[in-house]
């Protein structure tokens, strides 16, 4: 699969004008402008989607599942992220959104907040049973997992080996639906609806299992319009949803769309919730330096305020957050998961990883240690000659990265316009 090496983000060569906004926005310095167009370096990209937010020309496109991809499945199953519930006006109930999805053409729509609660209960049990190492880090955000594999390989062992809710939900459906509906597993397409550009990569190339239980990820951006239309056309559905609330929602589970949502359920443990990609990097740096050992669970979500701030959401995250908070407070601490169900699944290893997260690391300056050291010295020397205006005109995000690209043989010092002018 060539898809594996490619990031989940594509640059539209038609829309990209080669400006430098995305360069500076990238937290892993994975973008270069080459021949007037932005290029994303697959092995450095963590799929966080910061560039999507910053590109003024909408030139960065997330490769997610399209509606036509769904046609190949006889039975289409949707598992929407709880973020979806915050995208429509205050009067729209989550159950109406689920009904709207069915109207659009999904044969089955599954509500995920119960599974979020299940995942939470499993993490709590794991924390009770394993007192070391600390802090454990949740695996929910696929960008965090990828970031740890590449930039913090020594922290891989801290990732709590409990599958994220979307995978647990898909796994349950994958095992039960064929039997229930008397159809073959290949006929079922299970799709996650998400505000996150990284989910597609985590589905195509999961870090924690051989194969994802999901078939694809549809962006909220793409499905927002059709849902809005369906909501407007279905007066009776709305009345039915108001009078007969058929779906069970979990108060604890609904909150997981927000930063702190995963740790909220862990009452008896010391927890820390971090959101935003730069703050996540800062905290992971501290963990790598041996700090935060007195924290049991570290929740990191790279989007600001948690998944609700995902770049493929439509509604501004503050409004969406306020709506979700309202839902959470109306449900209170309502739990819907049966403890003995959870224990059973937990002990069958149904909720945990098949194999641990494998460290990937960053590509060294050179495979040979002595030559790598020489290159590091050379890079320092080159960097000291550069103007450090970090203008991006050379195509690298900053002068330091240009120096690095030069020693790696990927750029020339003369790419710097200041060097040319001053004739060095």
């Amino acid at each position, binding site marked *: 699969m060539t898809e594996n090496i490619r990031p989940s983000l594509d640059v539209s060569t038609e829309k990209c004008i080669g400006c430098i906004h995305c360069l500076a926005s990238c937290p892993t310095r994975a973008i270069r402008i080459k021949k007037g167009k932005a290029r994303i370096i697959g092995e450095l990209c963590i799929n966080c989607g910061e560039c999507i937010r910053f590109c003024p020309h909408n030139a960065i496109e997330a490769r997610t599942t399209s509606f036509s991809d769904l046609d190949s499945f006889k039975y289409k199953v949707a598992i929407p992220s709880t973020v979806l519930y915050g995208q429509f006006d205050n009067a729209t109930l989550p159950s109406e959104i689920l009904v709207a999805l069915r109207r659009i053409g999904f044969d089955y729509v599954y509500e995920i907040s119960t599974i979020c609660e299940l995942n939470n209960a499993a993490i709590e049990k794991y924390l009770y049973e394993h007192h070391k190492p600390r802090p454990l880090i949740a695996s929910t955000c696929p960008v965090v997992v990828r970031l740890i594999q590449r930039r913090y390989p020594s922290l891989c062992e801290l990732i709590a080996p409990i599958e994220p809710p979307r995978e647990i939900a898909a796994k349950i459906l994958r095992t039960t639906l064929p039997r229930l509906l008397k159809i073959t597993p290949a006929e079922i397409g299970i799709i996650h609806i998400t505000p996150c550009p990284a989910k597609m990569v985590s589905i195509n190339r999961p870090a924690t299992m051989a194969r994802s239980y999901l078939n694809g990820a549809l962006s909220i951006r793409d499905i927002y319009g059709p849902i809005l239309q369906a909501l407007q056309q279905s007066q009776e559905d709305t009345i039915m949803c108001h009078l007969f609330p058929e779906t069970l929602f979990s108060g604890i589970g609904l909150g997981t769309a927000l930063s702190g949502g995963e740790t909220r359920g862990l009452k008896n443990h010391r927890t820390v919730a971090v959101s935003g990609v730069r703050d996540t990097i800062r905290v992971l740096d501290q963990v790598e330096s041996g700090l935060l050992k007195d924290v049991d669970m570290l929740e990191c979500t790279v989007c600001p305020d948690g998944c609700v701030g995902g770049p493929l959401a439509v509604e501004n995250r503050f409004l969406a957050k306020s709506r979700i908070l309202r839902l959470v407070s109306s449900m209170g601490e309502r739990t819907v998961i049966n403890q003995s169900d959870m224990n059973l699944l937990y002990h069958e290893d149904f909720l945990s990883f098949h194999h641990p997260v494998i460290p990937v690391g960053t590509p*060294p*300056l050179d*495979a040979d*240690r002595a030559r790598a*050291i020489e290159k*590091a010295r050379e890079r320092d020397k080159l960097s000291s000659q550069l103007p450090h205006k970090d203008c991006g005109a050379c195509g690298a995000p900053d002068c330091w990265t240009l120096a690095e690209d030069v020693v790696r043989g990927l750029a020339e010092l003369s790419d710097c316009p200041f060097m040319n002018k001053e004739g060095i």
Partner: protein
Amino acid sequence: MRGDTSFQKDFLIMGGDFTRAGKVSCEIKNLLKELGHSFHVVRRVAIAAYEAEMNVIMYARKGRFDLLITPNKIQMTVEDEGPGIDDIDLAMREGYSTATKEMRELGFGAGMGLPNIKKNSDRFIITSEPDRGTRLEMTILTNGEGLQ
């Protein structure tokens, strides 16, 4: 020729500069990753460097952090101008700390700093002169660690 290859860099650390806490050790850590060191080595260096850096920030007026990397070892020397240590044996004991209440409230001063540095170094030399300063020399051997 190859044996002579080395990378040197020094950093100035100012006492009380908590806003830059962790910057030096972070830079060293990232450099080691780019040199292809195993993550076990990176982790050991990261912890030792961070503790040494924090000791200067917490207790000294200022300090110099010298980094020397060769293909076989990573050597870090931290020399500070500060109060020094009266009783090194006592300071090396786990749990012993002279941190103030404020420092402890910030999460520092658990008395694990020096023991942690020693634990993560292959060779550790500490010398101190009361009222003058402290000098730490930490060496982590990377010979035979193999390339990743």
